């Protein structure tokens, strides 16, 4: 019986082996082609923020962004015409919705990215997966990763990105503008004792931010201190812990699906939550979800939160008046034209409505 089957066994094994090897051989031949039909053969070796050395074609004219924050940064640098693709979550500015979508940040479609023939794909360590970067690398597509953990690093990261993308002047302007506004804020509230807050990322279960996130740093700059002191980036916090620490305020970021005020009302009706005074007394600050994105716009969210937390620091000088003074005497590194294009109606609109939400949508 064993002898009988010896032949079919080996024949089928050979058959399978030959078929598999043919397929492999065909692929290895077909894979040798390059996806980038770039006219210029000039490359620049750049070290990205995760320490990888990336070979980027020069000049960069086709950009794919795999994170909403990077899409915003590209727009802030005035390079939107070079942005050929972004993710389904890229919704700011409104024009970013019209770009070709390559899927989500976690599960983008590699073939859609390849089909756009990008010079560079922008990723961020916190939002994208390493597998995506490795896959792109195997396909011969350059990717550049950012990894900011503080607001200071968001500024330097934007500046570095502007060099990579060939727009260093715009980067210097954006960085200067961010620094100027943060310095201005610091003059007003730097001496005030920080408010103790709970930043709510998610309510069920309760998720907050850890101390090594740029959000925690943004809170510090806005004159707030997160009551959560965690090494983890997105710690799940127990209600008991919140009740023990009794934050002065809850801070929510405006989300797409749910209005934050509804979320607070829902929270207040849950058993046990009334023990948190900030909930029972509805002491809540709602800011733009720009605070969730490591992009230049985060400064607007910081300013907005600072105004809600320390309103007294902003009353001695009427806002409209201050804006007028600034327009008449622009600071040295501040160009009025750039101001209006980088911060489209954002600052001005909010100043017109005191205490209004910085929600840009």
């Amino acid at each position, binding site marked *: 019986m064993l002898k009988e089957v010896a032949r079919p066994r080996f024949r089928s094994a050979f058959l*399978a082996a030959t078929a598999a090897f043919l397929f492999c051989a*065909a692929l290895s031949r077909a894979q040798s082609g390059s996806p980038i039909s770039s006219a210029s053969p000039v490359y620049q070796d750049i070290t990205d923020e995760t320490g990888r050395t990336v070979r980027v074609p020069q000049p960069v004219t086709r950009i794919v962004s795999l994170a909403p924050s990077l899409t915003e940064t590209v727009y802030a640098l005035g390079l939107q015409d070079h942005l050929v693709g972004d993710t389904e979550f890229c919704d700011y500015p409104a024009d970013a919705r019209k770009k070709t979508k390559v899927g989500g940040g976690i599960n983008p479609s590699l*073939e859609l990215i390849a089909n756009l023939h990008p010079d560079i794909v922008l990723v961020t360590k916190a939002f994208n997966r390493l597998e995506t970067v*490795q896959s792109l690398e195997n396909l011969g597509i350059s990717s550049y990763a950012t990894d900011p953990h503080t607001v200071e690093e968001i500024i330097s990261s934007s500046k570095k990105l502007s060099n990579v993308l060939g727009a260093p002047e715009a980067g210097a302007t954006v960085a200067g503008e961010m620094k100027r506004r943060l310095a201005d804020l610091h003059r007003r509230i730097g001496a005030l004792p920080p408010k103790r807050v709970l930043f709510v990322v998610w309510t069920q279960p309760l998720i907050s931010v850890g101390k090594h996130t740029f959000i925690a740093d943004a809170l510090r700059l806005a004159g707030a201190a997160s009551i959560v002191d965690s090494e983890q980036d997105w710690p799940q916090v127990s209600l008991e812990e919140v009740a023990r620490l009794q934050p002065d305020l809850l801070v929510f970021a405006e989300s797409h699906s749910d209005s934050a005020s509804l979320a607070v009302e829902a929270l207040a009706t849950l058993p046990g939550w009334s023990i948190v005074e900030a909930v029972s007394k509805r002491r809540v600050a709602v800011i733009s979800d720009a605070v969730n994105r490591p992009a230049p716009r985060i400064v607007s969210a910081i300013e907005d939160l600072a105004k809600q937390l320390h309103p007294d620091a902003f009353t001695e000088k009427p806002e409209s008046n201050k804006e007028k003074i600034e327009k008449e005497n622009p600071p040295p590194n501040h160009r009025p034209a750039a101001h209006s294009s980088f911060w489209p109606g954002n600052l001005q609109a909010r100043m017109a409505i005191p205490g209004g939400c910085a929600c840009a949508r």
Partner: protein
Amino acid sequence: MRPLTLRRLLLQCFVLTAILFVVVVVALKFGAVPVSLYALGRDLLRFLLGQSSQISTDYGFIIWSIRGPRILLGIIVGASLSVAGTSFQALLRNPLADPYVLGVSSGASVGAVLALIATPFLSLSPALSALLTPLGAFLGAAATIAVVYFLGRRDGQIDSTTLLLGGVITGSFLSAIITFLMGTVTTGNTRGMVFWLMGNLSTSFQKSVYWFLGIGFLAAAGAIYTTASDLNLLLAGEKEAMHLGVDVPRVRLVVYIAASFLTGLAVSVSGSIGYVGLIVPHLMRLIFGSDHRTLLPTAAIGGAIAVVFADTLARTVVAPSELAVGAVTAVVGAPLFIYLLRRRLA
């Protein structure tokens, strides 16, 4: 059992390979970027005529460098899981055995994750580091199946219900360990949690990885195939097989190591894709009978068909985003598992 002839086995394999070819063409055609059937047909013809150099670079890159390797990965992973499932079913004499149901895939995932965490601390050459993940997955798979095997024994015999329960519980325990590791370990790559818990094929690898997978599969599946007729006799019972001259401990060891290796191989590149090793062998048994000499090759090709087809769905249903192929196989596989379980109990 009808006598096996070379002619029939070749015919069966040929028919299945033809179906696999059709599924591969469908998988090459559909995706987030539209590719016309004409362009694909023209390129396939040129490819078969050995004129690959003339293939247009426009679609060429997407078809040959993105979809092609992914389909190849699907073929190897599907065949590996299906052969592993068939082997576990014979080894444990339980038709409901499957790498996923028995927790072996989760064990392989834990091994792979541990290897990923350890890699940065060991200063190894890149080639050795790349081998560490499949090695970890293999060790995880081998350790898990050993644990499940001993959990499933009662009075020296394998008890079917205890075995399955032991496997399911072990799997859920190991999934919890992965979640724990992902939540606490901050070094290395911890973003891919979903990848390990719910398998997918979206990662593209270096060329050498495909060669490693292909050769590894052929070696392990070949080793299992050398025991095919012994496995037929084992179905009657271990003592009976021993009396008929089967070297039971040797067969068990070969199948145990090779099937664990196949599971580790599949898991190290695709995470846990469930139910393929259960459904495909069952289907093949219904169509071609339970002779392992036909069952093993037909299950291999059938597994390839199933995974490539499921992955095509995963790529296209919510395009431009992607589903995990493990979700697709679970949606189809879990109800079929329940059906088979009910029929067995009835």
